[in-house]
């Protein structure tokens, strides 16, 4: 259904951008060369040239940012456990099946054999970027 980037439109788009870049660069250099003899016209050439180059670069940047693909933020999730017996706190990576006020592994601090209670689960660091697609 929807065409993916890289279709005929994209080729045409890049061709137009290429022409615009060449023409703009040409105008810019002509303007510089003739600046001494025809200052008014040359200034216009230089301004149009700079504008053309800026538009081309901006458009290329837009295409580049769009072609990066989907990025999903996957956070590092931390589980905080507490022993009901000795109040020892333990922090470790989240394991599937962990939930707040659920029980987890036994406390190694007091050796009472009491399973620790999960008190908190949160994403610790700002999400790192991970590409999934």
């Amino acid at each position: 259904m929807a065409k993916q980037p890289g279709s005929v439109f994209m080729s045409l788009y890049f061709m137009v951008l290429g022409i615009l870049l060449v023409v703009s660069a040409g105008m810019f250099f002509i303007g510089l060369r003739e600046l001494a003899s025809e200052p008014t016209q040359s200034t216009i050439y230089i301004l149009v040239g700079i504008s053309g180059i800026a538009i081309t670069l901006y458009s290329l940047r837009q295409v580049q940012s769009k072609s990066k693909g989907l990025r999903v933020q996957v956070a590092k999730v931390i589980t905080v456990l507490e022993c009901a017996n000795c109040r020892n706190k333990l922090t470790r990576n989240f394991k599937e099946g962990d939930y707040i006020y659920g029980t987890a592994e036994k406390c190694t601090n007091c050796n009472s054999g009491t399973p620790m209670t999960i008190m908190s689960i949160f994403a610790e660091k700002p999400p790192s970027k991970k590409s999934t697609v």
Partner: protein
Amino acid sequence: MAYIINLAFMAMFFVLFVWGQRIQLTIMLRDVEYALSRLKIMRDETRRAAIENVKRLGKSQKDPTPYVDRYLEYVLIPPVPMDPAGIVWKYDHLLGITEDRVKDEVKVIAPEANEAQQYNIQNLLEIAQALNTYYRVIRHFYLFGKKSASYYIIIQIQVLLPEIMREAEALLGAVHAFTFGHPVGDGAGALVAARMMHGHEVSDIARDTVCGETDYEGRRVIVIKSKGPGGTVGRPGDAVSAILKRRKNLKSVLMVDAGLKLEGEKSGEIFEGIGAAIGGIGTEKYKIEEMVTKRKLPLYGVIIKMSSQEAVSPITKEIMSGIEQAVERVKELIKTGTKVGDTVLLVGVGNTMGVAQ
């Protein structure tokens, strides 16, 4: 050279004068097409994740793909709004049927998954369904706009695109959390309730909703939350109705929920309001407002700010700190707003995935 440039300017003027709107339309269509291709990738990715999760947790002999594909197209047909009296109860009934049906079907396709995992699978399917709906609607406008070459059809969808894409990206980000059962930002209200009721006896009060009682500074606090750790929002409206019918000595009702922050605001900050702090389709809010108004009870809300992305992603440190602040604020409100011996109702609203009681 000057002659060529003048000619080029005239040609450009002519082209823009005659085909200006057409060129603009093509550029806008290109934007919509790009968004559509992204939505398709998101929809397919979520669908794949849902199928894989059902297979991984459910261990069924049956291939879940046909069911997942059918679910993506499920719709809730809204009741007729011409005579709005009683529409809330009709919606409530239809929502109940939808929940029952999905629950039963998930049990069939994922028989080995435990109750919490089955709820999480339901949530994943809802995400895939929402992304499929976004994709279908945008595709409709894109194709219709392209066919009719109507500037106004395309501009409508282009205006809405940034918000739609933000919502869609938030949903895609949620897939990871719902696959592994992380507590999400939306569960902030439920976690505040859990902090208050933990260690006390709890009982079922309404569908997927539990209630417990605790004492704080000589006040009796009845706490309601959705039943965790599976991903459900429960029926807080039914629970509040049930409590208010049973207990005639209540002095006030306090609600805690996650709320969307505005651009520029900090996540995890709390603010307060008067009224029912609860989102959703509106049926639960209606029930709470009805009962509280009948009993003429004060109704307060404590809201924890977060973005739409944070609401469906694992709870961040900032939101966790907001939750602890909200617990303290709730205690303060109970202490300052009631007298010793009073009874208060506290309702923690939100998806309780990864949060027990």
